[in-house]
């Protein structure tokens, strides 16, 4: 388990904290979805977890020891897949994989073995000799993910790994990520796409303005009683047709109720998210 307690971070020269006392428990063995609008602090939290930024306050524990201690003992225990396509476009796919594996200290035999494994995993065997900059968007994302898996990390941080890909590549990536989740492995997944998080994550935290608004299993989050819901009642109806729906709405008005909206199907994560963060458009 990754336990985050009271984590704060402020960029130099800025008054407002990007992370404001965040506390989270991220269990192993599943995928933990981190949701939040732009500027909520998701990427900063990932950067602190990855060791790129140092938190002003708080601690992060990996099991019984601090995350920093764990990484000093086993530097390869954490992998990061940033939202940028973080590889060298002028190098071939194979050169990129060899470089990132080698620079992380994989020995020659292990490097060969891992390059082959992640190549097969990402289904990028056919483009190994091509320059990375010439790949399609989907292949670039697959290479980006493959590089993050070179050291078989116990903790994998995925920062919006499906941005800008076509539906087929997205489905492949989601399937792949789901496949690497397993006992003992911690996967943190950030995304703007609610349906993605709902589809693959077991646990979810919604953060905004550097604070955790809601955290729990996907079921807990979807079933949570939200403050704004107290005077709002959801009445689930099986409606035979549009005319019946219009009459039901009129009947509600006649009873002094104000219909707020009509949703088809069950409640989804996006509704919860929008209600919590209270805005639909962020700069």
């Amino acid at each position, binding site marked *: 388990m990754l336990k985050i307690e009271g984590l704060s*971070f*402020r*960029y*130099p020269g800025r008054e407002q904290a990007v992370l404001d006392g965040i506390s989270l428990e991220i269990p192993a063995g599943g995928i933990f979805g981190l949701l939040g609008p732009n500027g909520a602090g998701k990427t900063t939290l990932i*950067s602190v977890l*990855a*060791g*790129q*930024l*140092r938190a*002003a306050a708080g601690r992060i524990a990996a099991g019984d020891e601090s995350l920093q201690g764990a*990484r000093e003992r086993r*530097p390869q225990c*954490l992998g*990061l897949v*940033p*939202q*940028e*396509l*973080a*590889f*060298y*476009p*002028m*190098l071939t796919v194979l*050169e990129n994989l*060899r*470089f*990132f594996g*080698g*620079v*992380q*200290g994989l020995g020659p035999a292990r490097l060969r073995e891992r390059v082959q494994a992640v190549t097969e995993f990402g289904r990028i065997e056919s483009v190994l000799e091509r320059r990375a900059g010439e790949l399609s968007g989907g292949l670039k994302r697959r290479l980006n993910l493959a*590089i993050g898996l070179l050291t078989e990390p116990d903790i994998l941080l995925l920062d919006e790994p499906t941005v800008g890909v076509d539906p087929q590549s997205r489905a492949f990536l989601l399937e792949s990520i789901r496949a690497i989740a397993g006992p003992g492995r911690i996967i943190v997944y950030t995304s703007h796409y609610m349906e993605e998080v709902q589809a693959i994550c077991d646990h979810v935290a919604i953060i905004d303005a550097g604070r955790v608004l809601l955290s729990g299993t996907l079921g807990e989050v979807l079933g949570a009683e939200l403050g704004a819901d107290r005077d709002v009642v959801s009445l689930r109806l099986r409606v035979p047709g549009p005319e019946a729906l219009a009459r039901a709405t009129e009947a509600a008005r006649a009873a002094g109720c104000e219909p707020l909206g009509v949703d088809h199907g069950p409640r989804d994560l996006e509704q919860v998210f929008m209600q919590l963060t209270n805005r639909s458009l962020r700069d």
Partner: protein
Amino acid sequence: MRRLGFLWLKEWLALSRDVHGLAVLFLMPAAFIVIMSLALSDVATGDAGRGLEFAVLGSGEKAARLAQDIAGGGFRAAPAPANEAAARAAVSRGKPALVLLVPAGFQGIFEPSATGTAPTLRLLADPALPGPQLAAFQQRVLGAALGTPPEAMAQALDIEVVGNPRGRPSAVQQSVPAWLIFGMFFVVLPISSLFIVERRDGTLARLVSQRVPFSMLLLGKVGPFFLINLAQAGLMLLAGRLLVPWLGGEALEPPQRWDLLLAVTACTSLAAIGWGLLVAVCSRTLEQATVIGGVGNILAAALGGIMVPRFVMPETMQRWTELSPMAWALDGFHAVILRHGGAADIAASCAKLLALAAALLGAALWMHYRRRGRA
């Protein structure tokens, strides 16, 4: 060390695929060396008097004799103007650059005329004429007037210039090291552009998250660019040795101590790479890096005696050149190529360049950690 090897290999592969960047690093200094070696050849060798025209205005056999005796040694007699006014008008146009006015009744410098006073020779000179040429002409006039052939006067004093036979660099001795240094410092552009692209694309963040120390990332740039600088040095020396003479200029004499040349080149390279790393860390965009790196180099070159040879600068300006690291490097190269000096002669230049390299690398690390909130 193995991890550093991977960083060097990556940098080398990335560099080798940037054909345009490499072309700038090698072709630009080579072109400058050829052009400036040929352009400055007359100024640097002091042979600008070759074919310089003068005239002697005066009546009588003595004036004609003077004109005949003065001619030579780079000075050529031209037809005399009609009178002094015509002579002044001609000199003001620079054709001829010199007119010697011989008074009537002139017999010799120390011989009085019929009036009892020694008539004075007067010389009208073009203001654009360099001082050394004027002095050389003056010497020939005095020799001719005293009845001593100018060549004999020159032989009367045996001058030995210790080191470089000319006492100052020839065009090729000035241009090869100067434009080599300029080209070496231009690694600032590929270093900073590669680094900024790494930062923009998130590869730098990924490497930091993989616990690759930032100092190692910077050292990862040093090896490949050091080799590039050495290759630049080799090719520019070859250009001075083979290409310049093939195009009609003077050939560069090889140094007596190649080890010292390597030492100066290495120190210059480290200072140039340090400069590149600082610009890379400080600049937020490629445009910023291009402006800071490019303009910084041009200013350092203008100040450091790269664009204008230091020996033609006034004394005050020559003192200002000490502010430019390119001048330190040029001193080091001249100590080896020009003065054939020893280790002690390059020690100061090398020490200054190494101190600068260390300071620039330290500043780059400090800037990085300050920005990351880790200072």
